[in-house]
């Protein structure tokens, strides 16, 4: 399959893109830094991606560039089977304390994680539908499942994103667009470096394998690492009075 990837240079995105490359998928990378894109593209080439991995600049803070970046990918896959999958792992993370202390950071996080990610997905959705359908896979977070005292702001941005993706899946699945919402729990990456890892913390490789299976099956929601599915099943059902007392 041919995949456009926003966020393949780092963390879970890097791991997922590698697993796609190793089974011979075609890849086109979008991202902010040209040299980073280039380094990751060559890594994916070496690991077996179909054809040379293309790149184009695309910054989640600059929505004006989304259309052109996606069009570059569509062009690159023309004649090679066309666009099939769009993956978005990019986003902004900061701790609750940091976001409370810095309104500019908060504004940026909300804009990038919600408004701009939705805008990017809208642009991707239009192109996938034009190609006759496909899969849109977006990394949200378990942080958006309930209002939690430790991730109020980041969680709110991801809650909004998850609801959008859920609606999108309902609206367009009949026309061949499958939306896969990924809800990672704690995964050890540069994004979480320095934070205390809770139980069931995972590594990017196994998380990516689980996400890839979900993309192949078109599963609408995937929790990863696997134990988080059970953890969140409990947390979703906790009464509000209990949620108020829990410390995480």
């Amino acid at each position, binding site marked *: 399959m041919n995949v456009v990837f926003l966020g393949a240079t780092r963390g879970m995105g890097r791991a997922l893109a590698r697993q796609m490359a190793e089974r011979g998928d075609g890849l086109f990378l979008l991202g902010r830094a040209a040299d980073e894109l280039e380094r990751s593209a060559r890594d994916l080439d070496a690991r077996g991606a179909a054809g040379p991995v293309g790149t184009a600049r695309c910054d989640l803070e600059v929505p004006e560039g989304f259309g052109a970046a996606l069009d570059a990918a569509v062009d690159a896959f023309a004649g090679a089977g066309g666009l099939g999958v769009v993956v978005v792992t990019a986003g902004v993370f900061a701790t609750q304390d940091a976001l409370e202390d810095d309104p500019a950071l908060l504004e940026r996080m909300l804009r990038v994680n919600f408004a701009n990610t939705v805008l990017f997905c809208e642009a991707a959705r239009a192109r996938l539908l034009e190609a006759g359908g496909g899969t849109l896979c977006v990394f949200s977070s378990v942080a958006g499942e309930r209002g939690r005292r430790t991730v109020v702001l980041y969680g709110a941005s991801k809650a909004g994103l998850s609801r959008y993706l859920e609606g999108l899946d309902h609206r367009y699945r009949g026309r061949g667009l499958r939306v896969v919402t990924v809800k990672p729990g704690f995964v050890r990456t*540069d994004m979480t470096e320095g934070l205390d890892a809770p139980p069931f913390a995972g590594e990017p490789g196994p998380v990516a394998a689980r996400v890839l299976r979900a993309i192949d099956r078109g599963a609408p929601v995937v929790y990863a690492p696997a134990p988080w599915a059970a953890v969140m099943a409990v947390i979703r059902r906790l009464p509000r009075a209990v949620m108020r007392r829990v410390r995480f």
Partner: protein
Amino acid sequence: MPGVRRKARGTLEGWGRQSVAGSEVRSEDLVRATRDAPLSRGLGRSYGDASLPPPGAPRAVNTTRADRILAFDERTGRLRAEAGLSLFELNRVLMPRGWFTPVTPGTQFVTLGGMVAADIHGKNQHAAGDFGDHVTALRMRVADGRVLECRPTLEPELFAATLGGMGLTGHILEVEAQWERIPSPWIHQYSRRIDDLDAFQQALVDAAADWPFTVGWIDSTTRGAHLGRGVLMCGRWAEPSEAPARFPRSTLRARLPVDLPGWALGRTSVRAFNELYYWRHWRREAEGLVRPEAFFYPLDALRDWNRAYGPRGFTQYQCVLPHEAGPSSARRLMEVLTSRGGASFLTVIKDFGREGPGLLSFPRPGITLALDIPVRDDTQALVDALNETVLDAGGRIYLAKDAFTRREHFRAMEAERLPAFEAVRDAWDPSRRLRSALSVRLFGDPA
């Protein structure tokens, strides 16, 4: 990717399990992370304190997330990658395509940066030299903050000092090296029982002419006439005509889930293991195809095997004894071990063919012995005695293994080479911002 087991908070340990206070920061972005850091470390497979930070700057950079292949030329085998990429991953990706590292250590859970910093050697040292002999370029962050490229013709002193320089000349960010084409992914192995240590040294030299890979295991518990009896193993890559068409299956890697108690590898069990290992080779000679994993990385089959030594851990003592000192010097070394009641669980012997390429590379022509010694109250005295034997023979020790050597012994062994290495550090890092627990202990760097 099999990584490093999580340690008690606030401490870092080497593979031999002795720990220091310290922490590590993992980052995909080595250029950023190495700014102001005293040391980079990879998968922590050096046995002693080579990968541990000094007391005065206890935060090291862990490179294992910087793991991208930046270029691989399928026609020539030229590889360039970020320094934290592991040999395990490289073998996984490149072996099915017919490429293998020109030199491999006894574990694949090492990073490229670590292979350069220790200038690792393998079973083909007599034929292929060290890993450093196949490194064509390095990208480094040096002590003054600059990021630069060096190769044999560009900043040659820095390049030579970095091969085997234990990370003390700069942070290794990227490694470019020449990979080797293999005719099949199988090893043709020949093995033979050997009766004593003198015969063993001769057998290694004889086998070197016919086999690209040679190594010996010796029973360290036998004394007298049979001291140093063991099993010689030789190998070469199998030709396509003699190898199975299928790719060798990777064995499941079991993990040792707990620390065994300190007495688990006591004298009796070590003796029993060595006896069993010797007689398992009940035929005098054996020959056949084996998986490369079984041939090169037998110990990788049990992850975290270092926990078998209990909480006090163990030390691996590896030295090289020059050929000029004669075959009796290896016998003297083994006698020092056995006369002090020391027993090595696993003892490895191998001949080296040539001097390594780095200013402080470990290999030189001679016989190398590696002893695994559980840490006891008398370990320091035992290592002192072994070091005096090595000094008498004009030999040296392997810094990637060492944990107990005294500074005066190290300086005496390296009296000829150390000034040139320290001169490079004086030029690039006069205030010794880059240092490690090992360099404080052996080089006299500021803590």
